[in-house]
């Protein structure tokens, strides 16, 4: 086992610093970086509605990321009634919004919310054999406003039936709420990541800054609407990570955030996207209900997936978002210049045969 003694390490570090200083172009030298982390966590949703592990989860993420020698700084930490729905809302879209001060403040590298999502599923009881048949959103049941597109959705837990687009929302619970405690990141006043580097193309100014948003909530995305769900919210943010259920529920676990952060501690040159999706593998397999046909657990009760999406103005830049390492996440030069293209990566807690043409909808 090799030993590196401090004086030698210091000299080498100095040497490499000089090399880098000479080698890096001037434009890069003046590049903006973001290093702050904000975590907003809600355990308490009122009597009879508790998520006891959200704060432990959020705090574990912060502790895992911010420590002596880390490139990240602790920007803000709010819990329970200190988490307002308007923390997430863009003031350019809704004057009640204050995201420029909280969740999407300039300089945020990571903005992490852990709490409730909503169960609105947009599904009808109309069975189907092709997506082309799913054209009647008014047949959907449950909460939400249903609209096209439709999908003939199935999962290991559901037979094929017509489902429709419905907005996804995170939920807060505070006297400071002004939007009924609902953060509608699909069709609502949410724009994340708009910055001086991304530009104001999203119509929300340049007062944002989050480079990575994590929505650690139930039903963050429902298949196959990974693009439609997050397009409006992508206003320059480099990536959005969340959870996609495939017939199951998200389990409220204390270790998703800290496990994600562990990948940074292990290797800051590994990809952020791989870190998020492989977080799922690393959570206990037998905590949470099983998924029919094999699998389940890993932070889900039933079948589900950790998913991460990048958007930008070209296919190459969208795909490039998912190649970013933790080191690259800090650079605002990777902010999105548009949301016309997307790339998504996910890992599901059950096996899908490699010959599968579509795992969630009938064509």
């Amino acid at each position, binding site marked *: *086992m090799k030993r590196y*003694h*401090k004086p030698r*390490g210091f000299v080498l*570090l100095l040497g490499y610093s000089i090399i880098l200083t000479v080698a890096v172009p001037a434009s890069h030298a003046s590049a903006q970086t973001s290093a702050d982390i904000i975590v907003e966590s809600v355990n308490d*949703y009122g009597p009879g509605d508790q998520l006891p*592990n959200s704060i432990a989860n959020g*705090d574990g993420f912060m502790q*895992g990321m911010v420590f002596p*020698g880390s490139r990240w700084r602790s920007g*803000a930490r709010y*819990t329970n009634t200190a988490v307002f729905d308007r923390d997430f809302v863009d003031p350019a879209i809704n004057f009640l919004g204050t995201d420029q001060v909280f969740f999407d403040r300039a300089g945020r590298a990571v903005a992490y919310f852990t709490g409730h999502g909503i169960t*609105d599923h947009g599904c009808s009881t109309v069975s189907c054999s092709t997506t082309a048949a799913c054209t009647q959103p008014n047949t959907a049941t449950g*909460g*939400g406003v249903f609209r096209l597109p439709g999908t003939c959705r199935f999962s290991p837990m559901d037979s094929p039936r017509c489902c429709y687009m419905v907005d996804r929302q995170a939920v807060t619970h505070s*006297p*400071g709420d*002004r939007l*009924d*405690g*609902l953060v*509608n990141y699909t069709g609502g006043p949410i724009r994340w990541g708009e910055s001086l580097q991304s530009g104001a193309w999203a119509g929300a100014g340049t007062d944002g800054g989050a480079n990575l948003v994590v929505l650690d909530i*139930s039903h963050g995305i429902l298949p196959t609407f*990974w693009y439609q769900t997050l397009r409006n919210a992508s206003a320059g943010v480099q990536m959005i990570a969340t959870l996609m259920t495939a017939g199951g*529920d*998200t389990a409220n676990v*204390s270790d998703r955030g800290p496990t994600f952060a*562990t990948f940074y501690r*292990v*290797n800051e*040159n*590994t*990809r*952020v996207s*791989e870190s998020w999706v*492989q977080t799922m*593998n690393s959570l*206990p397999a*037998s905590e*949470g209900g099983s998924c029919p046909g094999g699998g389940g657990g*890993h932070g889900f009760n039933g079948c589900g997936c950790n998913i991460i999406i990048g958007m*930008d103005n070209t*296919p190459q830049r969208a*795909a*490039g978002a*998912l190649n*970013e*390492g933790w*080191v*690259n996440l800090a650079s605002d030069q990777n902010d999105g210049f548009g949301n016309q*293209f997307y790339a*998504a990566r*996910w*890992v*599901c807690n059950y*096996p*899908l*045969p*490699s010959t599968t043409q579509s795992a969630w909808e009938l*064509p």
Partner: protein
Amino acid sequence: MMKRHEHPCSIAVLVSVMCAGPAVAQSPSQGLIATDKGGASGYQHSLDRSRFVTGTTEAKLLHVEEYGFAKVVGPDGVFATNLRNGLVVAVQSGGSDKGSNGNAADAKATGYVRDPDRHNQQVIEYFLAAGVPKDQIGGVHATTYLSSSGSARETRPAPPKIDGYASVIERKVEKYPVVDSVAWARMNGQRKVVSEWVYWPAIPAKALADARRLEELAGSSGDTEFLARLPAGLPSGKVVIRHSSATAEGPFEVFASYDVLERKTSPATAEGKALGRYTPSITTVVSVVVRHFDVDGVERRLPQEKRNVGADYPPKETQPAQPVMSR
């Protein structure tokens, strides 16, 4: 087997390593982890026992201590051992800025095992050969890696592409699942490990004895004194062994638990809660939580579930309640 490589590590990796300052890396002893009499051995993974690929050729590997891990840093990946609890995590490097071209990780991911069952079998064989006790493997299942891309011009998403599998080993001691022990690996078509995570601590005899006792107490009739002491309305549970997770700080804790999966649905909004009843069109939330009860019927929280750093910051103006605005 330790690999050596011809090419020097990238400057980014070296700078990252050197920033850590002095490096004195000493990993825990590899192989079986001893326990007390009547307990179950743990397993300590190591690079010598791993098929993780840190690089493609004979190049110098760096051994450093950084952020609480003893790391072996190669040009293509890092093999890291947590110096406090023995957790092993091995992941590829290959992160890049948006503008840069290509990366090694993608090339290595090509050629994956196309059958999840076969991948499962290969990973079981791998961990058995490494030294995981055979009688502690309670099962295996695959997780699936997928990707998709597209644009606003498309009315329907392109079918996702399957990018491979990881296989997760489930741990049991006697017949009791050891929930928080996790071992998984993702292999490429050449049976090399692309990434892995192994945390398999020793289980003391008391936890096992309590598990046996707990099983007697819980019985199979669903009508025992033990169950009567639990909060009303809970579904039936199962006897398992729980321990500190790989990310938990503080002393290691382990206990036998009667774990119950509780699922509750509630209205999402204050308005909905005020109704006091469900209507078909109301937006709801669901909470799914695993609760733990020890051999005395006392509800327990795992160390990782008790994290709380204290006060919020920076101070935030809290506003008095006002009428909710319509959306």
